[in-house]
């Protein structure tokens, strides 16, 4: 079983240039995540929750404060941090098993170990029998399963999930939430889920971090002391969901849903060059 990581975020801040002027997208974020914990982050669009994940994975740099994983300051990407994006981002020219294998491309395992790990993780996400399928042959939900297997195959210490089920239909989404919980329990690793679906956050999280926008900061952290698997229809579940939703009650959520957050990829006129 993979070693689960402790993640410490201390006084984190991040500025983005908006029409020439640096504007804070994240301000004074402090959060300590225990090994094996499941933390949900909810917030309206523009609250910087995706930026926070991109900072933790290492796709964004230049921040103030500290992000420390097991005592080490995060610099750039690393194989011990995995991520699942909102779109599956599979390589369409590779089969399911080849896509999962990308996660092991730069690991130091032997070919036999790789083959075994790839098969284990395809089984883990319930895609046995689809090893040689191409992404165009998969449904959206299956594509996300492959993305989860790809992210987990190298046994990362922490898995980041950036609205992974946001583009799926409600039935598939519910089902994959159960599956994700099963995988989390089975693998015992730290997971951080960014979502705008409060029910999803309550269903999966040990704690729910509620963020508010402009600048993005933590408004409140809600504990979810419910036993798993959680019953979405129970009174306790509804009460916590209501409690979290209350945090959006000041009208900011509705107002900010229409504000598009700066697209981090195009923000810096980014170009691949050497």
């Amino acid at each position, binding site marked *: 079983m993979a070693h689960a990581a402790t993640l410490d975020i201390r006084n984190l801040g991040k500025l983005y240039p908006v029409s020439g002027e640096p504007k804070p997208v994240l301000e004074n974020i402090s959060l300590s995540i225990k090994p094996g914990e499941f933390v949900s982050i909810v917030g309206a669009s523009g609250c910087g929750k995706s930026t926070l994940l991109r900072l933790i994975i290492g796709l964004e740099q230049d921040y103030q404060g500290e992000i420390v994983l097991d005592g080490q300051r995060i610099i750039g990407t690393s194989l011990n941090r995995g991520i699942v994006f909102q779109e599956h*981002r599979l390589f369409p020219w590779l089969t399911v098993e080849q896509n999962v294998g990308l996660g092991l491309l730069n690991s130091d395992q032997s070919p036999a170990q790789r083959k075994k790990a790839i098969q284990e993780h395809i089984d883990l996400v319930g895609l046995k029998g689809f090893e040689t399928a191409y992404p165009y042959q998969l449904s959206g939900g299956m594509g996300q399963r492959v993305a989860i297997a790809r992210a987990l195959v190298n046994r990362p210490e922490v898995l980041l999930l950036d609205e992974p089920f946001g583009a799926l239909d409600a039935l598939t989404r519910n089902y994959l939430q159960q599956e994700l919980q099963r995988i989390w329990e089975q693998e015992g690793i730290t997971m951080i889920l960014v979502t705008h679906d409060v029910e999803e956050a309550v269903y999966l999280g040990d704690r729910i971090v509620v963020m508010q926008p402009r600048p993005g900061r933590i408004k409140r952290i809600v504990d979810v002391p419910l036993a798993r698997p959680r019953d979405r229809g129970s009174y306790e579940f509804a009460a916590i969901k209501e409690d979290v939703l209350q945090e959006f009650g000041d009208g900011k959520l509705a107002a900010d849903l229409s504000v598009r957050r700066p697209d981090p990829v195009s923000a810096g006129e980014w170009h691949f060059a050497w």
Partner: protein
Amino acid sequence: MSASHSRRQHDWRGVVAPLLFVALWQVAASAGWVNTKLIVSPLAVLQAGWQEITANGFAHALAASLARDLAGFVLGSLAGIAFGVLLGLSRWADRLLGPTFHTLRQISLFAWIPLISIWLGYTDQARVLFIAVAAFYPVVLSTHEGIRSVNKAQFEVAQVYGFSRWQRLVRLVLPAASPQILTGLNLALIYAWLATIGAEFLLPSFDATGVGATVIRGRAAFRVDVIIVGMLVIGLTGYALNRLAQRLEDRLLIWRGPAH
């Protein structure tokens, strides 16, 4: 699956028009409606074809043309992919070399003939170079375009999994650009075959054999039948080459699914 299946079955309707044309042609020639010195009958063409194959080493000529074609195609394509990758990946190289490239490609291919013949003479090297130049341009353009269209989100995936530069090139950039690169290669194959015949016309030498050379010989001997045999073989060879390339492309791009 069904799309590639039906594509594999031959549709013989395409043969009807040429057959009708040949029949009409034969009737016109036999009935003496035309001057058979200028418009020989299909039967005479068949006889000339048979004679070319059996007595005049036509297979050898075709092989010589194909060898030139493929040599030029391979050289030009490899150079084209390499240059296209450079322009596509390095904004710096694009700024430095792009304008020169786009100016040079405005020069008609045939304008290269005098220069090439002065450098290399009327040799096979000269012909192959001419063919390579013809194949080079479409491959550069399509490779460049293919690489520029690689999804930026996929570069983030490469970054997350710690791809090296080489891994990014061979595992992400080239496969992602492969549909456009293959389109360019298909075009290059057509251009290279046109240039092969062109090279035999414009860079001739008495010892060089080839299908184009056969046509010229037909012209010199006022043998319309030989000219037509040559033209037919040129057309059919080009057609066969492109069918082959199309098959190969379909096979390589199977991951795009039947929607394409």
